[in-house]
């Protein structure tokens, strides 16, 4: 991992990955959306509303994935002072917040016809809402200091504190038995979802993932450039 601590070396690899990730994302989005929204069968109980799942579930996975990687990056930044880790956490935060918002929004739209309500104070929904607030709090905290290094450090500690929430989200549907259904893809004994629905779901998950990789690379590049501009400016004035 420390091989990539050098921003120049990281950028060389990242620039090579970027077009592939972007391309993969576009292809998977096209294929997954076609399969999910048009070609896959409607659910025998839920009818066509089940198609919301193809957006809702990947967004939910990504919201957790993004937070977990940000927390790992925060740990790396605090322990090894890894210079890219902080840039990564900062770059990924708005994306994570976006995924979480998308997940909450589509979940609410799905809940209205299926559960008869836009929102319930169920453990899964509440913990995801807390995750959303954690993203917002992190972004506000990082920007609140005159010294960016101090902000990044405070943000890292907050990320680690908030990491308590991740297992709570994952297991909330098993610990508390409420409206939200338990996991049906990542479970012991294999997925219980029909193959015709699993494929578009996995394709879209891949699409979300590669979209995330592409945009995060772009944002890290911008973050590194901003840092460079700042040092150059300081060098000129000082």
């Amino acid at each position, binding site marked *: 991992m420390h091989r990539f601590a050098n921003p120049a070396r990281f950028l060389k690899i990242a620039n090579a990955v970027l077009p592939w990730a972007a391309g993969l994302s576009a292809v998977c989005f096209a294929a997954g959306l076609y399969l999910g929204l048009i070609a896959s069968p409607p659910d025998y109980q839920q009818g066509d509303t089940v198609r919301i799942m193809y957006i809702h579930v990947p967004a939910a996975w990504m919201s957790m994935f993004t937070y977990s990687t940000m927390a790992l990056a925060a740990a790396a930044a605090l322990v090894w002072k890894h210079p890219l880790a902080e840039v990564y956490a900062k770059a990924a935060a708005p994306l994570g917040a976006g995924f979480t918002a998308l997940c909450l929004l589509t979940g609410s739209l799905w809940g209205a016809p299926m559960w008869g309500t836009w929102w319930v104070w169920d453990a899964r929904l509440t913990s995801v809402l807390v995750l959303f607030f954690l993203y917002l709090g992190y972004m506000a905290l990082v920007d609140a200091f005159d010294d960016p290094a101090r902000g990044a450090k*405070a943000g890292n*500690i907050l990320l680690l504190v908030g990491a308590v929430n991740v297992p709570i989200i994952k297991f909330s549907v098993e610990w508390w038995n409420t409206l939200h259904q338990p996991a049906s893809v990542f479970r012991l004994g294999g997925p219980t979802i029909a193959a015709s629905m699993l494929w578009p779901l996995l394709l879209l998950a891949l699409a979300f993932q590669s979209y995330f990789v592409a945009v995060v690379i772009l944002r890290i590049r911008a973050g590194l450039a901003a840092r460079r501009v700042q040092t150059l400016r300081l060098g000129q004035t000082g």
Partner: protein
Amino acid sequence: MLRLILRDLRLVFRQGSDATAALMFFVLCVVLFPFGVGPEPNVLTRIAPGVILIAALLAALLSMERLFQGDFEDGSLELLLLSPLPAEGVAVAKVAAHWLVTGVPLLLVAPLLALLLRMPVEQLGLLVGTLALATPLLSLIGAVGAALTLGARRSGVLLPLLVLPLYIPVLIFAAAGLDAGLSGLSPRPHLLLLGGLLCGALVLAPLAIAAALRAAHE
């Protein structure tokens, strides 16, 4: 560490205003509710646990901003961090002092307020017990936020934004315990969970507070 706690307590008693302000805020907050929702006894009994818990939570938050701010500004926090006492010890002492100053008075006043809100007398013991578990948690979690926002711009707005989401679990289990008591069920499981949260926070929060304090001084 004990000396540090005593020093903080002395400071508060000589100034006086901070602690009493938080307590007055708590009382007034609760007293406002009967005017807001109407003095109907059944409604008041139903909402009493939630009202008291939320008022306690806001009162803890109100006094939280000053927890490290004064010491940070006059430089004594730096001396405390340089002292042989580890930063975690400083964190525990500050939180303990904060709890003694704001949490314990709340415990004493809460039964009176609960009577104003028409909570049944048998439930008062449960209320005090729940608050005794919940208020140290509020102090511990809030102190993490207070340490993180040290020296930040707009720290007054930022602190609630960081801390309130983390208060949600405390509120959920405390309210569930009180509700169970009111409807004649056993509050034990909820209080055990609350106690578990407290044990976890007692171990983990000082580490986070100490890390944040060190970060504030680089």
